[in-house]
């Protein structure tokens, strides 16, 4: 697809990258290159301003409490406003775990730290005394595309969706947003927040392609993306889904 370009903004890559979240950016880049779409990645970190018009896709990964505090502070004000503006303009965005929490209304950590978010997602997060850790499978429907997502979650935050918020999907196995209401993640326009590490996009290439398509459609006349050979991606996802479901059956039988 010569002549097309996708500009990725990787937010806080050195601070917000826990559990291999950068795999999501690697996946976006490769799936563009394989289709002959020009792709650029710009790292934006503390103290660097953003122009919402400069990017077609934003990514922010998860981080530890300490890093989250630094990022929360940096996102307050103009920078967070720029990210919100971009999403309002239809730019796509993926936020994982800690990044997802900081794009909500607030994250009140278990140790009592109050981290105000940028209110992109209508969600509120409160830290719990235990961590939700394990393989997770999610039934998701975005834009009428149904897919099962698979990943690994590891978070103490319990996220509650507000009245305006739409979840990314329903948990089949695992905890998701809060371990209680069966929801996982949040979708707003072309922005997705999720608790799934894994990395998420490599094993869920349809979601990656959804981001690419949404990003390109803003700039170009485009119906579909050319298909890729996803045999390896699908095999890895199916294998992961299979043992994740096995864990569920095991848990059910033995009450663990």
């Amino acid at each position, binding site marked *: 697809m010569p002549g097309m370009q996708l500009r990725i903004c990787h937010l806080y890559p050195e601070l917000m990258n826990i*559990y291999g*979240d950068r795999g999501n950016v690697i996946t976006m880049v490769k799936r563009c290159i394989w289709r002959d779409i020009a792709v650029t990645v710009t790292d934006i970190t503390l103290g660097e301003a953003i122009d919402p018009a400069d990017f077609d896709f934003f990514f922010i990964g998860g981080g530890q409490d300490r890093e989250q505090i630094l990022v929360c502070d940096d996102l307050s004000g103009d920078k967070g406003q720029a990210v919100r503006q971009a999403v309002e303009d239809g730019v796509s965005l993926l936020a994982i775990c800690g990044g997802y929490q900081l794009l909500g209304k607030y994250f009140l950590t278990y140790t009592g730290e109050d981290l105000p978010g940028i209110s992109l997602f209508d969600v509120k997060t409160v830290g719990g005394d235990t961590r939700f*850790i394990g393989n997770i499978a999610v039934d998701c429907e975005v834009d009428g595309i149904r897919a099962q997502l698979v990943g690994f979650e590891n978070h103490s935050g319990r996220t509650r969706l507000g009245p305006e918020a739409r979840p990314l999907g329903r948990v089949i196995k695992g905890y998701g947003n809060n371990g209680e209401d069966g929801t996982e993640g949040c979708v707003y326009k072309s922005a997705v927040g999720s608790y799934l590490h894994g990395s998420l996009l*490599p094993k869920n290439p349809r979601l990656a392609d959804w981001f690419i398509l949404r990003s390109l459609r803003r700039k170009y006349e485009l119906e579909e993306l050319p298909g890729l050979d996803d045999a390896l991606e699908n*095999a*890895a996802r199916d294998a*992961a889904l299979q043992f994740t479901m096995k864990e569920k059956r095991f848990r059910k039988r033995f009450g663990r």
Partner: protein
Amino acid sequence: MRPEAPEEIASRLTGGCVLVSGTNGKTTTSNLLAGMLRASGLQPVHNKVGANLMTGITASLAQASDRRGKPRGDIGLFEVDEATLPAAIKRLTPRMVILTNLFRDQLDRYGELESLSRKIDAGLKGLSGGSCILLNADDPLVASLGGESTARKYFYGIESEDIGEIGLRHAADSKNCRSCGEKLSFSAHFFGHMGKYSCPNCGLERPAVDFAATRVELKGTAGSRLDISTPLWNLALNLGLPGLYNVQNLLAAVGGAELLGLDDHNIEAGVEGYSTAFGRGERIPIAGRTLFLVLSKNPTGFNEVIRTLGTEGRDLPIVAALNDRIADGRDVSWIWDVDFEELAPLARFIIASGTRAPDMALRMKYAGLDAARLTVEGNLKKALDKAIERSHEGETIYALTTYTATLDMRRLLTKIGVAAGYWEAN
């Protein structure tokens, strides 16, 4: 067994107890130190490979004592899981704690690095005033530990700056100042978040080093030649273990030995007589080829292995086995933090294996390995067979394996009779 037994047995060790903890390098550091202790005529009581939780330590103490609980050894030398360290300090009252490094490893088990280091700090506070802590100065997180402890602190580190790189890799975990949060600046960077650093904001500096590698000459998988300077000696040593991470392990062992009162001859003899710790770079002859087996269990370890392989040339036959058993960490996300982009051009082929073979294969695909050079074979024996079939007589096959995959490979090699059981080797 009565619950107080380990304390009782430990208290009867005339030489006291030494604990070695940290994410990477526990086994190598304790084996090196054990070799030096033996060279000096002492008999260390040592825990078995990987048995580094309290139960494993208790079992090894019980095994090394007679029926009345009298230990058959002079000094306890235990490698201790990072999360177990506070409990081990409380129960064993060690005379020395060595901390190698702290990386994101099995965080699904430990939670965050920050909370882990807080727990370790609380544990170190419980050390008695007469004991000492030996810390890796190159690791900003480790170097900041023990601030509230009354035990004496000593540091080891690499002083030879010419082997460092400029800039940090993304696998670096601890890049911000522990006291003020500012991004650290590195004048030399070794690997992971290891290097010579300072904080441009609050002025925090890497501590002065007591045990220093003043010259490092890396010789690929063959190891390195080192000049080491200590408060008492200047040593010139040949280390048969690859990579800078093993230089740090040796420094930890040298520091430990000197602080325990060993002399330079014991240290030299210990290094000379050292046989590789299980899976830490063993060469095993098999079917006219050599299998080079390297434990590769987290991003920093893996990146160092890849850097070492870079000195071995191109066109390498490689088996990469990824398991997700509890001892490996159930979460395999970390493979996306490894610079496999640098491994792909070195490989003639990569056979992805282990319980998470498809994940490993997918990572290799996105790292730029074309389909013709990539094979998925979950079964380790079949993967090894394929690697032998597709390599030439006299060639080295590189097996990069996570923790339990290394155990599986070792077991497999023992079964087909090309290697002794690792328990015999230790």
